[in-house]
């Protein structure tokens, strides 16, 4: 049995984009069991932009699950954005998880926005100025929340959904100097701490589609500028046989 997952991130909706994705999204009930959105749904994180997301990604005939991205935080309207999305039937994850009953089995999705920090050997430390310590503690708290959410789910196939990248593999194409602003190894560590089958993220517009965690979990960068189509589709197989 197969679980069919559609995914895209970084769609950055506003009025000028509404309707562009819809024709492809209308095909989803025929080809996917669920749509996962990897954050940066909006340009500035306003309630008005969230309504654009609700129009474009609401009422699709498949469950829609999302995390927020850094753009969705820009205007400090996160509670309003989340409410608009939830009112449209979209599940918003932040250190939480959900299980979807699919024809191919129970799909568990744990999600968190994540944060920067860098990767092993080239990362920020919880040391020095308060600002630096706050930065790194944000990274760690986010990764800890993802690990807890992943481990809390009872399902046949487990997917981690983040905005920031959990591995450097899928950042290839971005300037190495900005990797610490694109993701952190602690997210990868969280993913490897659970029986995760697939990790999906966005954020890195110039990155690469495919990578793996140190523990061998497949990672896919589904940022719209990377996949260059309305969404990608993954068939998760053997784990649910």
């Amino acid at each position: 049995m197969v679980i069919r997952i559609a995914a895209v991130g970084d769609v950055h909706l506003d009025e000028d984009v509404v309707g562009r994705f819809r024709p492809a999204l209308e095909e989803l009930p025929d080809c996917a069991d669920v749509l996962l959105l990897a954050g940066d749904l909006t340009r500035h994180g306003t309630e008005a932009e969230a309504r654009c997301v609700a129009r474009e990604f609401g009422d699709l005939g498949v469950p829609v699950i999302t995390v927020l991205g850094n753009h969705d935080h820009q205007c400090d309207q996160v509670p309003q954005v989340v409410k608009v999305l939830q009112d449209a039937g979209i599940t918003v994850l932040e250190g939480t998880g959900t299980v979807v009953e699919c024809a191919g089995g129970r799909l568990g999705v744990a999600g968190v926005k994540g944060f920067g920090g860098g990767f092993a050997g080239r990362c920020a430390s919880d040391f020095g100025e308060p600002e630096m310590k706050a930065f790194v503690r944000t990274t760690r708290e986010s990764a800890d929340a993802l690990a807890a959410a992943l481990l809390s789910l009872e399902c046949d196939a487990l997917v981690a959904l983040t905005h920031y990248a959990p591995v450097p593999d899928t950042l290839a194409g971005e300037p190495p100097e900005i990797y610490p602003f694109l993701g952190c190894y602690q997210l990868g560590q969280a993913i490897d701490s659970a029986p995760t089958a697939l990790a999906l993220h966005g954020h890195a517009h110039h990155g690469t589609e495919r990578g793996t965690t140190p523990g061998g979990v497949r990672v896919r960068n589904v940022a719209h500028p990377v996949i260059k189509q309305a969404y990608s589709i993954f068939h998760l197989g053997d784990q649910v046989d």
Partner: protein
Amino acid sequence: MTGQPGDVPPDEYVEAEIQSMLAEDPSVAEQGITVVRRERGLVLYGEVESQHRREEILRRVTERFPHTPVTSDIGVIRTQAPTQVEELP
């Protein structure tokens, strides 16, 4: 390319200011645009979600730096349904 004969090629600080402006200007808010300095001016690379955003980026950059020759090679990302599936056994 924008600009006029005799314009001065941009330096590193102009490149940095444009990169910051593209990210922080609310009318643009793009972090995925690459600014490259070439011998005769700047080239903007990247992809955005609409034709309007592509035009707005060039308008804002040329408005802020009217004497810097700028070439825009920014595309609009396609939104067609996928034709292939990735099997993950």
